[in-house]
């Protein structure tokens, strides 16, 4: 169990390719941190630097107050779970799990105790004599986790451990890993490109893009208050809708104007826009699919925020329907109840929830609110 501290970490590859830029993060003891971002954003590189598999070009990495930049991976007291499991194909499950302990000359009885205990936690007791080839994807994943658990490390590192599993198993293993974290009470650092995994598992999420941290926050804060267009678009599924338009002020009221539509903004939001000088300037409005409503009551409540949308495609998800609409020139996704009107090529009235509207600066893409 340990906290980590990453200070001004850089990874620069030969040829001046910068994979990670000025990465600063304090990870608390027992915290579940998720690094998330599109492929090539530097999240795996960061994890590999923590593991010691990649050299840190610049900056300092502390594990529990000890600087470990030059410390060999085996002496960092970490364990790692790989995307393709990386189980040793010629060893049985037992030997796979015991290998690290054998190298450390742990007494046999102790090895046996730890392996049995981990096997019990992961429900793989019957598989101990099998070779990895004879296991299913989910079982291999459990063994890979088991191999990490027996080491009783201070920090668990996981590099997209669920991406080779099928959708159903992924959901199952997601909860299993969360339970494991709760049970082991150890620091977890988890890398994924899947924002759902990040949202459901992490205590805090680090969103990365092009080697830079975009935002570090709890899942809820990240969802409700994204700092820029990238984070707003990356977190949430289906993703947030973005509409480019202009801010106009008429008397006391402020409107967001796009494609012949005028969306009346709330007084608080208007004040922020006015104070920051965005009146008569172009901005990007963001609204999440679930904040676009087609219920009569809400349309009546927010009469200033009503638009007409032409339904192009509708997808019934069971409890809800995703509507893919054309509003003016913009393609918009709305998430409505399953008993809504959703016939393709019909025009439907929709209301934007004015309290849930996000605004971003068009040039810097940073959030205004």
């Amino acid at each position, binding site marked *: 169990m340990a906290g980590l501290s990453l200070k001004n970490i850089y990874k620069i590859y030969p040829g001046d390719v910068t994979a990670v830029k000025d990465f600063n993060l304090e990870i608390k003891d027992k915290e579940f941190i998720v690094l998330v971002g599109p492929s090539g954003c530097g999240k795996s590189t960061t994890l590999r630097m923590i*593991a*010691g*598999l990649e050299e840190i070009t610049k900056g300092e990495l502390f594990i529990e107050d000890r600087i470990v930049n030059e410390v060999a*991976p*085996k002496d960092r007291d*970490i*364990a*790692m779970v*790989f*995307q*393709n499991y*990386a*189980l*040793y*194909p*010629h060893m049985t499950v037992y030997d796979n799990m015991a*290998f*690290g302990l054998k*190298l*450390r000359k742990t007494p046999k009885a102790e090895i046996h105790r730890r392996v049995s205990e981990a096997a019990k936690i992961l429900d793989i007791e019957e598989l101990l004599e099998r070779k990895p080839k004879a296991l299913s994807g989910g079982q291999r994943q459990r063994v890979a986790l088991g*191999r990490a658990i027996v*080491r009783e490390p201070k920090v668990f590192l996981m590099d997209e451990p669920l991406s080779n599993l099928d959708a159903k198993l992924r959901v199952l293993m997601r909860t299993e890993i969360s339970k494991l974290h709760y049970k082991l009470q150890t620091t977890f650092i988890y890398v994924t490109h899947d924002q759902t995994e990040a949202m459901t598992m992490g205590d805090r999420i680090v969103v990365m893009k092009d080697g830079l941290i975009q935002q570090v926050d709890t899942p809820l804060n990240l969802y409700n208050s994204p700092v820029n267009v990238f984070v707003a678009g990356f977190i949430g599924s289906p993703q947030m809708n973005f509409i480019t338009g202009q801010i106009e002020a008429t008397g006391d009221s402020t409107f967001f104007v796009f494609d012949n539509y005028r969306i009346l903004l709330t007084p608080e939001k208007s004040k922020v826009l006015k104070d920051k000088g965005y009146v008569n300037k172009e901005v990007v409005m963001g609204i999440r699919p679930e904040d676009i409503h087609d219920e009569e009551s809400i349309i009546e409540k927010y009469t200033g925020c009503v638009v007409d949308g032409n339904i192009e495609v509708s997808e019934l998800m069971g409890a809800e329907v995703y509507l893919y609409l054309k509003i003016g020139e913009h393609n918009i996704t709305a998430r409505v109840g399953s008993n809504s009107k959703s016939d393709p090529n019909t025009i439907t009235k929709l209301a934007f929830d004015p309290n849930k509207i996000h605004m971003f600066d068009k040039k810097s893409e940073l959030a205004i609110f």
Partner: protein
Amino acid sequence: MSSNKHRSKKVILIISILLAIIFLAPFYLVLTNSFKTQQGIFLNVMRLPFGDFFNPQNYIEAFKQLNYIRSFLNSLFITVFSTIIIIIFSSMAAWMLVRTKTKLSTFLFFLFTSAMLIPFQSVMLPLVNIMGRLGLLNPIGLIFMYLGFGSSLSIILYHGFVKNIPIELEEAATIDGCSPIQIFLYIIFPLLKPITVTVSILNVMWIWNDFLLPQLVINKPQWHTIPLKMFYFFGQYSRRWDLALAGLVISMIPIITFYFIVQKHIIKGITQGSIK
């Protein structure tokens, strides 16, 4: 349709039988004639070894003249040590050549590949000359030369195989606490088993049967291998076919036994290209 299929099966069977006869005929000739007297061989080479010409004494005589135990041990020593050294060096070299991605490693790999194109005959005289000056015209020098000649093909075979081993296995082992040499011994080398079998078969066959290089390198009769000893049956004035054939049979036994023991691995080595 089905009669056509039936007919083509028959044709294949007949061709297979003919091929089998062609391939097995030399074995038949060697085996039957090894039990005949010299006279019997010349009178009727195809006849089975019964009656007047039956002479199993050939084997005892050949065994004695070959100094079989001694030459067998010489062959065994040279073959086993050469093969072991080739396996150790080429598997390690191939591993490093795959994992090190520099211009030098590409160049070295190219060098090993191109070395295969140079015929042995074109280098044998300068080689023997140099080795002679170094005082290495003995079994140790011979093993060293086999390492040089054998490593090219072995490295290429290992190289192709190592490429299929995911690097994550090595990274997992690093985190588990392995040093590079432990990674090789505990992870990489065991995974190379199928190709190691193939490499060892190819090298054992070649080294065990090799005549030219030992002939050039080994001067002292006490170090002569079986192929060298066999040569003495063909003197300037006499050719002892009866003894030579019996000698051939007893010299073939070890290598054929070895082949049968490992043959199922050969197919595995060829087909099992990747580790998933």
